[in-house]
């Protein structure tokens, strides 16, 4: 399924995982080509959820299905997902082009087609002219653009954003969300994003999963959940009830 246009359905079936004292239990289904935002208090298991999908954590029971295929036992590199972290997405000693190129070949053996794809991705995230720059000379937003460009050249049907824009200012964050939205419209990949800002979900008009104590406490359309009639737990988290 790697390389195919479009998104893939992401399903967590009866996933059980414990992290120290914390026991988690996830059941989740994100249909193909959807955008889903994951919110919740810190320590509720948001990042763990993404780590389970990406393969950085191994569940104690249950299955991870991507595009209907069981990937529970696959190592991270073989899963059809790309993940963007909050920081440390780039190798500081490699320039922008090489950092993106790693998405095509982990040995940096790039063909002409690879180079074309990299140049295209750089253009699409708006970094043309900065191919030879090192990460230390880029702004925080530009670095995340490089990470997204790498996700583009990897061309996997699922994109995971782990608080990828948390360290950016409000205006920049909205810019980055718009970029993701535009790329989503283009590639139709499935996007799961962990965020601290519920308004991100509204901005993206996405699905919303609200996590509490290692469980999905509420899910549905962001617009419905975040409205007056939304569930109590979510309102408590938002601080909108007395």
């Amino acid at each position, binding site marked *: 399924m790697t390389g195919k246009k479009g998104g893939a359905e992401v399903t967590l079936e009866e996933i059980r995982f414990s992290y120290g004292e914390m026991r988690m239990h996830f059941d989740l289904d994100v249909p193909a080509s959807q955008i889903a935002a994951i919110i919740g208090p810190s320590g509720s298991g948001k990042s763990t959820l993404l780590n389970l999908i990406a393969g950085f954590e191994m569940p104690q029971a249950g*299955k991870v299905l991507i595009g209907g295929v069981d990937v529970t036992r696959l190592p991270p590199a073989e899963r059809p997902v790309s993940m963007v972290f909050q920081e440390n997405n780039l190798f500081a*000693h490699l320039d922008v082009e090489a950092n993106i190129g790693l998405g095509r070949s982990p040995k940096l053996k790039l063909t002409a087609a690879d180079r074309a794809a990299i140049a295209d991705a750089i253009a699409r995230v708006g970094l043309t002219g900065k191919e030879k720059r090192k990460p230390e000379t880029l702004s925080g937003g530009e670095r995340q653009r490089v990470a997204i460009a790498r996700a583009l050249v990897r061309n996997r049907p699922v994109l995971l954003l782990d608080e990828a824009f948390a360290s950016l200012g409000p205006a920049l964050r909205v810019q980055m969300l718009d970029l993701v939205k535009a790329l989503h419209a283009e590639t139709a990949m499935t996007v799961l994003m962990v965020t601290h800002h519920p308004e991100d979900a509204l901005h993206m008009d996405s699905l919303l999963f609200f996590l509490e104590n290692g469980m999905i406490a509420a899910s549905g359309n962001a617009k419905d959940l975040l409205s007056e009639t939304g569930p109590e737990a979510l309102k408590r988290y938002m601080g909108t009830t007395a």
Partner: protein
Amino acid sequence: MPGRAEGGAVPQRMSLIPRTTFPAKPLAGAIALAFLALLAGGALFSLAFEASRDESGAFAAFDAYLWRVARFTLLQALLSTLLSVGLALPVARALHAHQHFIGRAFILRLFALPLALPALVAVLGITSIYGRAGFIAKTAHYFDFGFTPDIYGLTGILLAHVFFNLPLAVRLLLAGLDSIPPDYWKLSAQLGMGSGSRFRLIEWPAIARSLPGIMGLVFMLCVTSFTIVLTLGGGPRATTLEVAIYQALHYDFDIGRAVALTLTQLALTLAILFLFRLTGRPTEEGFSLAITTRRYEKLRPGERLIDLSVILLAFLFVALPIAGMVISGLVADFGRLFSERSVWRAIATSLILGGAAALLSVILSLALVAAREAVASGRKMGRKQSFFERGLDTGASLILVVPPIIIGAGWFILLRHFADPFDFAPWMVISVNAAMAMPFAVRLLRPTWDTESARHNRLCAQLGISGWTRLRLVDWPVLRRPLSVAFAFAMALSLGDLGTIALFGSDAVQTLPYLLLQRMGSYRTLDAAGLALILGVLSLGLMMLADRGSQASPRKEERP
């Protein structure tokens, strides 16, 4: 897809790196540990074996002579420690009270020098000042004082030990003083504290915390000091265990005595290290030339004068022997020295053996560091460290328990059963020096390795970068600098080593320190001074390279 057990699945927390790959890092770490264990264990086994055999006469050798030597070993170390640390106290106080005078940074840099200097070179520097034909004797003669200093014996040993350890103690004490919160200095200025109460109320509590550690460190260095006692000690009355071991093996070929002496030395170092553990280790953390504590009090003119004279005296004490070494070295006939084949051979031998030892040391240290990180990050949450992981953690520093002379003596005694021990000189020099440099190399490599792994493990796992590709693309660019620093440092240490080569050296294999010792022994003082200068320049050059490398801004953070 492997079938998954439903329901009662095995609870498992996977490391960030899938375990499907060959465990290259733990294996490399195990090899490095095995090397250390074999080196130290082989020597200890050999000693125990000899001691258990009756005919070696090891038990008979526990005689009055041995006890006298052991007593002197402890006595000189105790006196050296008291003098070094005691004299360092006022110097550190004075340097801390005066944060801004021209030359302060230079003095602090100078105080880092003696530790980087091969002991043999420093000994020549000291004799050039305090020796029978030294600077002081000549000055006295010029002014017609009938005074000829004789430093051979306890005096010389103490002088040299203080020369090495006073600057070290000053730096460590300064680190302690720098840890005092700045508000205290404001307070002391506001309350108008005098020098006495400042010392009692502010400085002493900070110093007292690090003092036992500093004294333990200096004491240990003096108990195991070999070169200084060998060259400045005077006959059987001023001999330490390490030198006696060397003499028993080298001159008398008295195996029984060597075994008895070595066991005593080992027991002594173990006992001291045990005490040392109770005191804790001094750190040089927080000490840097750049950061200065702001001091607010106004010193009385008298105090100022005393402080500055203390600093000047300490400066002269450290600087004079170094200057003497350089000047008497420059007088040497380099034209003739460099026309000698033996000199060139000694330089080449030193560089080759030192380079090989440094390379081995760095490779093994990297293996230990990488294995430790791999095992630690693969450890299940909340589980205790395994025995293997603890070994990877502390294995390198444990080698310091066994002084090089003991390792050398043990293997010398063991190899004698199978072959001519002198044939093994290069191998012994390389492996002992590599092992001795490992604790330092590990300390230089580990922080970078650990932070880089924390930063890159997930990314590499996702992008499928592993094995050699990872080493080439990710690890090497980041590790190049600390690796070269560790290499230069290890090589400088190896170049100055005399202990192992003194045991195993022969006409066939001569390093620079060995040749230097020979020339000193045959009273070719000028040659010795010239060789010392060559050796000093080589060692210091490498140390400066290492220092420059570690000071130069480590790669900028990803986030500005």
